[in-house]
């Protein structure tokens, strides 16, 4: 039976009627039209569905929409502000870190959570933070470079 739930996504509040079994990834994509979050494996193995809940990267394909109430959800669509790319998005673009793009939203969010917690991570820490996000196209080299560059740029700006 459907229930009324309230979700706060990218700073906006939504009221929705959903069944308890609906997954957050499906509600974001199908009910809210936020198709930036991707589905690729059903069982939480690839990280493509990664969103931030209260700043923490989680798998939206293994989160019930009903469980995400009362929390701040950030999807890839919420990264850019006022038409300006987030430094990580800018870095991904500048360093050739995007090929087919399917893993990109999840990567960006995992990377954002890392830099928010640890603004100057080592290469090993970046690899660890992104170890739950699979990419088949890039071989990860430029993704890691992009995260390093974004961290460096933020440091220089401070």
């Amino acid at each position, binding site marked *: 039976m459907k229930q009324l739930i309230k979700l706060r996504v990218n700073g906006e509040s939504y009221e929705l009627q959903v069944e*308890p079994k609906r997954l957050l990834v499906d509600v974001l994509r199908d009910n809210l039209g936020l198709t930036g979050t991707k589905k690729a494996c059903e069982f939480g193995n690839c*990280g493509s569905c990664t969103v931030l809940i209260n700043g923490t*990267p*989680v*798998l939206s394909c*293994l989160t019930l929409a009903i*469980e995400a109430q009362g929390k701040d959800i950030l999807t890839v669509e919420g990264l850019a502000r006022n038409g300006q790319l987030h430094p990580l998005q800018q870095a991904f673009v500048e360093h050739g870190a995007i090929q087919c793009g399917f893993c990109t939203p999840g990567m960006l969010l995992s990377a954002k959570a890392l830099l928010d917690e640890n603004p100057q991570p080592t290469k090993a820490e970046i690899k660890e*933070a992104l170890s739950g996000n699979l990419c088949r196209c890039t071989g990860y080299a430029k993704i890691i470079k992009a995260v390093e560059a974004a961290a460096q740029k933020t440091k220089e700006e401070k």
Partner: protein
Amino acid sequence: MADLDYLPALSSFDYLIPKTIKEACSLLSKHKGKAEAIAGGTDLLVSMLKRQISPKYLVSIKAIPELDYIHYSQKDGLKIGALATLKSIATSPIIKDKFGLLATSCNKIGTPQVRNMGTIGGNICKAGPSQDSIPALLVLEAKLKLVSLKKERVVPIDKFFIAPFQTALDKAELLTEIQIPTPPPRSSGCYQWITKITEADETLVGVAILMTLETDSICKDIKIGLCSVAPTPMRARKAEEVLRGKKLESKLIEQAAQVAAEETKPRSRADYRRQMTSVLVKRAINEVWQKLRR
């Protein structure tokens, strides 16, 4: 009926949100047999998507505030609430300092996202053969507090696992706390593993060691915990006997490692798992010995 294993899907359920432990136990008791407690959900939802279980009620315990904590005192040891996330345990300064092998093990589980969502209680109650947190808890001789409507009981962890995915937890019971005594002085431990295929992958063989030295070269006590090499996580007690009270030296350590390998009962990739048990037990003992000699 057709076998639709290639089309994972959730069947419908009611989602209940108790606010206290008592309320949770009451709901689990009321809907006994048709309800599952859900914490992080990473293991539970996967089982449900695969249609291995189809509970009619999910009792969400995430909102219960008094279940997420990490407390330590020299006297009482470490007390971890069942809802403490794997990440919080992996990064807790006190656990890294005094119970390092537990932090290492929890940091191994899954991926960063899974560690953010997954709880220690969930990891223990899933009771799969390859749960990384268990070997450390075995060698640390953890006790589990189980609460139901009528009573509370404390069960030593080595009595908790009955069979793969089967524990001593009653359907109307809730695991609320993990209690770990402070190890004796001159103790140290470690957790070593190899994975099935890639680096960020399920554990193929996991070895936890907790060793207490009498002197720099005499082993007062040693505990060896293994996962993924038997139907349930286990202690390699015969191997422990080889070293307990004895003078440490490489031949004896190798012998203990070999005995540990012989105690295992792996199903798939059995030869390799046995071999790796021997290699990892040897390496882990040496790592701990090295740490203690500094």
